């Protein structure tokens, strides 16, 4: 039965596929974040603390940074110099960035003292670190995109350091067009991808438990079932 009509009538399209990249991707996505873990509405009791709020606050600030940046892109790089609306949007962009960094650093402090890389969460920690460093680079190119004497002064200071490490020919801070493209295109895309990866990893592995809670749980498990400990000793 090889005709199109025959294969359709036989519901060939409903049989399990042998292997193609769509099926492999679907399987991989399903394994990465099991159903119900992508947007959970309940969390373990140890998440009941303000320190766990700062990751979400960082994400909220980032969304405002991206939104106000998109509006600034509509007006162009000099819009905020000539329009009170542009100036207001630029101020929203600046202050949401300030809050983004403040929230992100407090989130970092919290996770550092929780040793949040425990329990196969190393990649979560690493993507967070790279997103943090990339955000600093994105903010620096933002300083260079102000189209004023401040950005000119900062670029003149930055060029010597970047030239001394040999990347000035490819990353030329004296070229405001190149810096603007890095700021509004390449770096936000990289940060966005890293943040998505970071959040997916958090959803996949769950929020790290406190160190004492983990120890308590281990002790409770040993107390309930000491067989393993006796067998290995």
């Amino acid at each position, binding site marked *: 039965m090889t005709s199109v009509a025959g294969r359709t009538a036989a519901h060939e399209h409903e049989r399990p596929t042998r292997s193609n990249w769509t099926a492999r991707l679907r399987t991989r996505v399903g394994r990465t974040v099991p159903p119900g873990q992508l947007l959970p509405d309940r969390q373990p009791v140890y998440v*009941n*603390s303000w*320190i766990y709020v700062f990751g979400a606050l960082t994400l909220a600030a980032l969304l405002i940074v991206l939104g106000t940046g998109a509006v600034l892109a509509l007006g162009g790089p000099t819009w905020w110099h000539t329009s009170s609306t542009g100036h207001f949007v630029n101020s929203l962009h600046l202050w949401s960035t300030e809050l983004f960094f403040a929230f992100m650093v407090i989130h970092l402090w919290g996770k550092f003292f929780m040793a949040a890389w425990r329990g196969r969460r190393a990649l979560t920690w690493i993507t967070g670190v790279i997103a943090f460093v990339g955000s600093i680079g994105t903010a620096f190119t933002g300083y260079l995109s102000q189209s004023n004497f401040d950005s000119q002064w900062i670029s003149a200071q930055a060029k010597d350091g970047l030239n001394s490490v040999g990347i000035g020919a490819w990353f030329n801070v004296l070229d405001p067009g190149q810096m603007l493209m890095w700021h509004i295109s390449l770096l936000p895309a990289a940060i966005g991808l890293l943040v998505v990866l970071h959040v997916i990893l958090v959803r996949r592995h769950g929020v790290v438990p406190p160190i004492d809670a983990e120890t308590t749980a281990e002790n409770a498990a040993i107390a309930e079932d000491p067989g393993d400990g006796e067998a290995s000793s």
Partner: protein
Amino acid sequence: MAGHYVHWGVIQISVTNLVIILAMLVVFALAIAVPFRHGDEDQDRP
């Protein structure tokens, strides 16, 4: 450059940045110390 700076050995920092960092440390301490009341009855127990 206008502004007040704190000089402490090799460390030199503007008063503005120092105040912001201290404020962040206060927020960090409060985030740990202040109880989070919402949803106490609706959380899973480990």
